């Protein structure tokens, strides 16, 4: 069976990720044996204009669906699409290691899978209330590995949205005091050049105690 992304991961790779992570007990292995073949298709969403580096269309759809529930649309607040959350998740994954990327892609496959999660539909096909319950099921699971998976997904989604300055207003943050940042400040690399002010020189050469 060919594995082309999210959806039914072949049982071997599923076993591998669980074994690699040292999951105790056979519960998930058993689940993996039951139903990885029988799944419905993921509900896709339009892709961003620029090509994705890491995620395929189905993985992107899963990220998008999860982000929609973690950061729901709200009056006066930018949506996840306004802030390109899916694209940012893809970009962050592009800067991690091959192993991390593979793990995360598998994780999205497992989360989407109806069979593994004893659901009737893949996550992307659920209605919002069911999706929230599905997220909660992983967050509150007695299986540590699923809580780990939830943590991985939550962190990257939240980081992707709240790293954008457009998100600041809704959290009552007026932004940093940018006047203190000098983007043209000299960069000193030694080699006989005199150290510029800042770079420890300003304070070293000052007389007396200027206080904090």
């Amino acid at each position, binding site marked *: 069976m060919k594995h082309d992304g999210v959806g039914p991961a072949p049982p071997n790779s599923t076993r591998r990720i669980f074994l690699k992570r040292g999951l105790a007990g056979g519960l998930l292995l058993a689940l993996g044996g039951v139903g990885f073949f029988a799944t419905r298709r993921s509900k896709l969403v339009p892709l961003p204009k620029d090509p994705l580096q890491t995620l395929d269309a189905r993985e992107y759809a899963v990220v998008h669906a999860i982000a929609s529930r973690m950061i729901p649309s709200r009056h006066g607040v930018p949506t996840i699409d306004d802030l390109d959350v899916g694209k940012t998740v893809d970009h962050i994954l592009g800067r991690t290691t091959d192993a991390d990327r593979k793990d995360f892609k598998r994780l999205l496959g497992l989360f989407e899978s109806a069979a593994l999660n004893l659901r009737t539909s893949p996550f992307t096909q659920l209605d919002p209330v069911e999706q929230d319950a599905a997220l909660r099921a992983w967050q509150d699971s007695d299986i540590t590995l699923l809580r780990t998976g939830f943590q991985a997904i939550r962190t990257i989604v939240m980081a992707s949205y709240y*790293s954008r300055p457009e998100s600041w207003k*809704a959290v009552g943050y007026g932004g940093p005091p940018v006047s203190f940042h000098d983007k043209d400040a000299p960069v000193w690399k030694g080699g006989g050049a005199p150290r510029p002010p800042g770079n420890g020189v300003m304070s070293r050469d000052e007389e007396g105690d200027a206080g904090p």
Partner: protein
Amino acid sequence: MTDGRIFTGDEITSDLDLSCDVCVVGSGSGGAWLAHELVSRGLSVIMLEEGGYHTRREFDLTEATANPNLYQDLGNRTTDDLSINIMQGRNVGGGTTVNWCSCFRTPERILDLWRDRHGVEGLSVAALTPHWEAIEERLHIKEWPLELVNPNNRVLWDGLGKLGYQRGLIKRNVHNCANLGYCGMGCPIDAKQGMLVTVIPDAVEKGLTVYANASVRTLERAGRRIVAVHADVRDPVRDVPSGRKITVRAKVTAVAGGAINTPTLLLRSDLDGGGRVGKRTFFHPVVVMMALFDEVIAPFRGAPQSVYSHHFLERGKDEMGFYIEATPVHPLTAATASTVWGARHQEFLAQLPHMQASFAGMADGILEGDEGGTVSLRDKGYSRVKVDYPLTERHWEAFRTACAEMARIQLAAGAKKVLSLHSEPVEIDSVDQIGRLEKATWEKLRMRIVTGHLMGGCAMGKDPAKSVVDSRLRYHELDNLFVVDGSVFPTSLGVNPQVTIFGIARWGAAHVAAAV
């Protein structure tokens, strides 16, 4: 005096094969002070740093820029099971570029413990004091004045005072500080006296050569000596190997990569210290309590840490001690470090300006039988390191006690509501509700646990059967390999570690120099 130079990865266009007296691996609190002391003695020193050379030109006061540029794993380093978030620096200057400037000399009881239980010789308050004095002078380390304490820390000060708990003002390594509150993103005005703007440039002026974007992969051994240090040059923009290599053939090699990267480098080099490298790693695991106030706290503004309490550092006979400090909260941190999601998360974050954040760090490894975590390799390539950190019954008892005490302090200071960072946060409106914490689920990945203090993994001591390096910081089984960073701590400290690392490095430089 020969002027040194800082090279970045883009300047290295061919493979380099270099020789010197001492090769220092890592440019943080240990490596920087060591290198400075060595060049001051007239030795030729090459420093290799995996991270980039980022200066105030790039410090735009945003988490989005700082996290990937200045932190390990893009600011997302964690234990293997993602149960503990690890904030650790990765840049020229290491943790000192991004830490919150808190300075504590090593507690005497810790040095006594290292001597009595771990066989560390010669490392005493008397031996370290001259070094601390020199360090404090160069880094302008002074107590932060009460009138400049920001509201986030003031809550702690007031609450501790009302309850009669021990409290103190923190000494900070800053000069002409504008009290901005962005220390964790690199100081935009070079007021923070981190290694980046003090000891490293001082050393470069005395001849130190620094290669940034140089990731040391292995130490090559022949008999009882390290004969070469092998590094991959990284492209500073894309942060991937450029294909260029640096080989340094030094008389002496000193590893100062910190308590996660030093053990992994040794392990990649098949130096496992009889199975002890990476063991007894200590994090000061931290739990956080959030408080909501009617007035504006703005936990993102002002010196991040200026008040501490050691009231609970020494508790009952078999109880783990903890220290209490405040933690700054910026939007990205607030969003990721909180535990809820959905509308509830949005409503929580909307109160950011009115939030106060207190935390307690567990002084682990001090009680007998407390073995800490383990750092190991997945493979010898570029895979994420593997960190396992079991939490014991003593940790959980201390977490529960610390959260209850922090709630008491926050309420005493006038908080209208206190929240834990459990998956299902415990909400407390008054002192009589603090008992609700007992009903929470105290388990990994059901509550937020973080760390910024990385210690241990290459413990020092007299007995090669119990430690990795000797009391002169020399790797037991080799003649010319030293470890000079927080990984040599046999236990955690119970205080912020940078000054202890500075002190050990400045003190240990004499031993390293003597081996040349």
